[in-house]
């Protein structure tokens, strides 16, 4: 009878056998009939809390995409240190306290091998208190607030361009074009505060006149009062430390008020695809800060961007790239050390000078990233164009921003 089995049947039978053995293997107790494989120490487990709900859900998801995409690629190439890698993640609900508890759980209960950072400055600040206590090095994959590295911690390593550099491009362009007055507003989160505080200082150093500052809450639904005051002061430049929905709101309400400053630069918002989807053509000419763009000419960038696009159906934003690059950095660190040893990994990260798809990495004594510059994009023709710094720019900045009724 076995001779008459069709080739299809053989394949099916083989598959069945494979599945059965594959399934049976973990259940088989190691009784000594089989020598325990020394090299197969199980996967390297990487712990992280991710903001999948709450304020940072949008960007947290991107970060997780970056991690998982790296994991798939790394495992397909045989893993790290000849071991597969596996993420153990929990939703921290964008809540710093929750994240701190989750990292405690990851390290103490789940006993993960290594950890990697969560998203946002606030969450990272809380989570890193726990990882520092346990002496687990944390690659900060989604935060750039200065406070994180101002606490004398030894196990926290930055990958992002630091918050104080975010608006360098906008200030530089404003200065070069002879603009005089700047209004600075921001959402009152830790990161946006850092960006705008530094921008205010740098704007003054550049000889610009800071004529208006204000903070607003993340749930703001009407910025007309604020923008009315800025319009009355007739600021040349509007710089806003935004975190998403407020970016859309600012542009829409500028149009409602039928007023444009000469230059509008926002931190987070323009670099996310939602921005142009939500605003349509009104998004044109707005500048946005970015950590990373898929069209930066640097090693590994276009390979990552193309493969990511093929999988997810859209080009990666910098949050995804940050997750991917940070995981690559973790891989490089582990491979340099040659084993899963958190103390050695910490020492390696402290002295490494390397590059990932996310960009250059080198830290100072505090663990703060020093090698990566800030980039400025502008929405032109519906696309995010890299316009600053000049060396990396793919097109020139288009200023001043035309009035709403002067657009075709």
């Amino acid at each position, binding site marked *: 009878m076995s001779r008459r089995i069709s080739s299809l049947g053989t394949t099916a039978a083989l598959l069945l056998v494979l599945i059965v053995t594959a399934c049976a293997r973990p259940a088989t107790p190691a009784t000594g009939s089989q020598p325990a494989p020394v090299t197969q120490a199980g996967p390297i487990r990487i712990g992280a809390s991710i903001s*999948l*709900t*709450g*304020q940072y*859900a*949008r960007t*947290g*998801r991107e970060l997780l995409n970056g991690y998982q995409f790296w994991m798939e690629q790394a495992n397909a190439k045989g893993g790290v240190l000849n071991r597969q890698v596996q993420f153990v993640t929990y939703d921290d609900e964008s809540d710093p306290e929750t994240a701190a508890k989750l990292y405690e759980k990851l390290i103490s209960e789940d006993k993960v091998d290594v950890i990697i950072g969560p998203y946002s400055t606030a969450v990272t600040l809380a989570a890193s208190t726990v990882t520092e206590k346990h002496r687990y090095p944390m690659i900060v994959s989604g935060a750039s607030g200065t406070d994180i590295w101002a606490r004398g911690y030894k196990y926290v390593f930055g990958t992002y361009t630091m918050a104080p550099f975010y608006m360098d491009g906008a200030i530089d362009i404003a200065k070069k074009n002879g603009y005089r007055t700047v209004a600075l507003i921001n959402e*009152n989160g830790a990161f946006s505060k850092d960006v705008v505080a530094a921008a205010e200082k740098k704007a003054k150093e550049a000889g610009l006149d800071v004529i208006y500052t*204000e*903070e*607003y*809450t993340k*749930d*703001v*639904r*009407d*910025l*007309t*009062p*604020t923008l*009315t*005051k800025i319009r*009355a002061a007739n600021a040349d430049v509007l710089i806003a430390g935004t975190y*998403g*929905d407020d970016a*859309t*709101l600012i542009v*829409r*309400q500028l*149009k*409602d*008020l*039928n*007023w444009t400053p000469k230059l509008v630069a926002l931190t987070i918002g323009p670099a*996310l*695809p*939602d921005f142009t*989807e*939500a*605003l*349509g*053509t*009104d998004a044109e000419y707005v500048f946005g800060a970015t950590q990373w763009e898929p069209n930066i000419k640097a090693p590994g960038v276009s390979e990552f961007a193309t493969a990511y696009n093929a999988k997810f159906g859209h080009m990666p934003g910098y949050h995804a790239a940050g997750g991917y690059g940070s995981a690559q950095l973790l891989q490089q660190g582990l491979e340099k050390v040659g084993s899963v040893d958190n103390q050695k990994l910490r020492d390696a990260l402290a002295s490494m000078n390397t590059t990932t798809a996310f960009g250059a990495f080198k830290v100072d004594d505090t663990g703060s990233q020093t090698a990566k510059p800030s980039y400025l994009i502008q929405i032109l023709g519906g696309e995010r164009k890299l316009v600053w710094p000049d060396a990396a720019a793919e097109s020139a900045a288009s200023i001043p921003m035309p009035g*709403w009724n002067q657009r075709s």
Partner: protein
Amino acid sequence: MEISTLVQLLIGGLLLGAVYALAAAGLNLIFGVMRVVNFAHGDLMMLGAYVAFWLYTLAGLNPLVSLLATVPLLFLLGWGLQRWLVDRVVGQPPLMSLILLWGVSLVIINAALFLWTSNSRSVPAFSGGIELGGLSISRSRGIAFVAAIAITGAVWLFLQRSRWGKAIRATAQSSEMALVCGIDVARVRHITFGLAAAMAGAAGNLIVFIFAVSPVVGPTFMLKSFAIIVIGGLGSFQGALVGALVVGVIESFSAYVLNSQVSEAIVYFALILFLLARPNGLLGARL
């Protein structure tokens, strides 16, 4: 303060207030009839926003036209929620309904996150301002205002004039008496929740072209609506309208005179003041 700025702020406050009113009036309707605080009200609003967003994105439908779909869809959802879930906790201790509806809220939010991701969505329609005597009035907010007032007014007329409206008001006054008089109180509750959900959905449908929404916006709207109905008067339909307009204007002026951070907090400050000094709110508890 210049007079033009004053008018600009007043108008800005009223425009947003009317949309709050549409949501808050629904919340008050449910509270009036069932003594239940609909914790998922903001999430029903979010669903309304997504209906409008998807109809625009997939079919290019004008968000005002999509009201024709949002309102019946959300009515059915509200009707079903009441019929199969909330009915079980009406008349029970308040904690029961709070926990149930909080659960409903969590399910809606997480289902939305799962289905539609956490991306911020908005419909780029009706942008720009209408110049009016030196002022620039937001077109999108103006349109939302007119639509919100029209819908709120229509519901008010329905409550005042129609048989079912009268039945709803009677049930709100005393469900036992209404029952004795031969009113199908269970059915009244289904219709009330459906109506309130439809109003929340309509409010969501209108905000989607004012600002960006994501699956997690519900709770903040719910909290604000709750503050509004306490200020306006728990259980009072007109109170919700007045409370919402007052809140909109207070927010607008405090943001200008003080700053935006204070203006977000001031509503809740007012909520505490009202609870202490005038627990019946501006218009007491009459439906």
